[in-house]
């Protein structure tokens, strides 16, 4: 048969993709069985934070958790707003299209946008007590968070990244806001776990996200819900979450100090 140059010819041999898909499915089975028992509920995942990496925004921060959650956040300093009164903080939260594992229901669906709007409102609630809005009358501060990969505890990572970005932008703040997420698996007597990974979060019976201002020791937001058990369990979960926030604070503080030093040594063009 003469060669048809107008068509792209596929390879001569082909194998079914199921051969490779089976390996991934086996991994998940293993996790379900062994994951619940092997994980220490109070263990914090490794946290990486870096501030001052974007040049096009006044302040920026990138936070990555060990479970694979990656959040990039940018902040802009005061711009004139038309409304009178104290300054306003405008938050935006976006999930990248490639952020979740598996297929999206329908790209651009209303449910996704609703979830993003809720997350943005939660971000605003967590950050507003930390920013000195009284120093910026009639101005508008903008914060935009982009979730690059969702590996669990996305909102908590976004809160930390947004606080770092605002501080990096030179906005006057009372304190950094640190976020921590918890979840409780559906087993009857299970205990709360810090910083769940994505499969654990999906299967959880109750989820909680905390935002704390560590130096002032004030909680700025508590978000979540579910079937968690008696109220004492929730109180214990809160304490666990606050402890997790306090343990994460030194890493965030160090990244901000390094960014300030870098900014000082290389003056902006």
């Amino acid at each position: 048969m003469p060669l048809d140059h107008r068509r792209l010819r596929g390879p001569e041999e082909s194998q079914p993709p199921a051969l490779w898909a089976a390996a991934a499915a086996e991994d998940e089975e293993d996790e379900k069985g062994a994951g619940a028992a092997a994980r220490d509920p109070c263990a914090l995942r490794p946290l990486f934070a870096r501030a001052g990496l974007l040049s096009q925004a006044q302040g920026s921060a990138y936070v990555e958790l060990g479970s694979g959650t990656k959040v990039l956040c940018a902040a802009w300093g005061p711009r004139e707003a038309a409304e009178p009164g104290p300054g306003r903080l405008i938050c935006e939260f976006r999930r990248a299209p490639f952020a979740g594992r598996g297929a999206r229901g329908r790209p651009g669906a209303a449910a996704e946008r609703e979830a993003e709007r809720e997350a943005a409102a939660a971000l605003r609630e967590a950050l507003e007590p930390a920013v000195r809005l009284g120093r910026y009358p009639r101005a508008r501060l903008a914060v935009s968070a982009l979730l690059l990969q969702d590996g669990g505890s996305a909102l908590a990572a976004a809160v930390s990244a947004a606080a770092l970005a605002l501080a990096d932008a030179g906005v006057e703040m009372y304190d950094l806001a640190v976020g921590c997420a918890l979840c409780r698996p559906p087993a009857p007597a299970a205990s709360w776990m810090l910083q769940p990974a994505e499969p654990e979060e999906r299967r959880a019976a109750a989820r909680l996200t905390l935002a704390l201002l560590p130096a002032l020791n004030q909680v700025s937001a508590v978000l979540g819900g579910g079937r968690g058990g008696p109220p004492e369990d929730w109180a214990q979960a809160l304490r666990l979450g606050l402890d997790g926030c306090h343990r994460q604070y030194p890493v965030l503080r160090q990244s901000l100090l390094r960014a300030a030093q870098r900014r000082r040594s290389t003056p902006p063009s």
Partner: protein
Amino acid sequence: MAPPARYCVPGERLCSTEEATAGSGTYTRHGFIFSSLAGCLERKNEDNELPVVSVVRDSESQLLPNVGAVVTCKVCSINSRFAKVHILYVGSTPLKSTFRGTIRKEDIRATEKDKISLGDAQSNYLLSTAENELGVVVARSEAGVQMVPISWCEMQCPRTHTKEFRKVARVQPQFLQT
């Protein structure tokens, strides 16, 4: 060699209010001074009073025009009742994003400084030129040439010799740059 700079983050406790007074970039709470910016700590020693502790972020300082500040602005539209301006400089530092302001006709006076408020009801800054040092600094005549001030109230175009009324400012010598 300058001593190594000490950097601080927002919310870091610097010292107590008995040892120093709070400067810019800090706030006080429960008798302690906390930092409010992520930047360099600065301590200025005054002779009679307590030293002033402030946190400086030397690259940009986002200023907002305060009440009583001298600003440099550019007129963008003129009405019979007021003029709309873009506020460009506060003092001698340029603003990164321009703010809008309004100069009402009755505020262009020679004397009697008004009480200008940031305005709860209005959405613009109100400005006044009620001092000798305030007023028009640069103006162009209808011919497009920069005019020369000849009195407190008049400026003349050097080419067409027409006089136009402006409230001229007597700029202080320290602000003039040649």
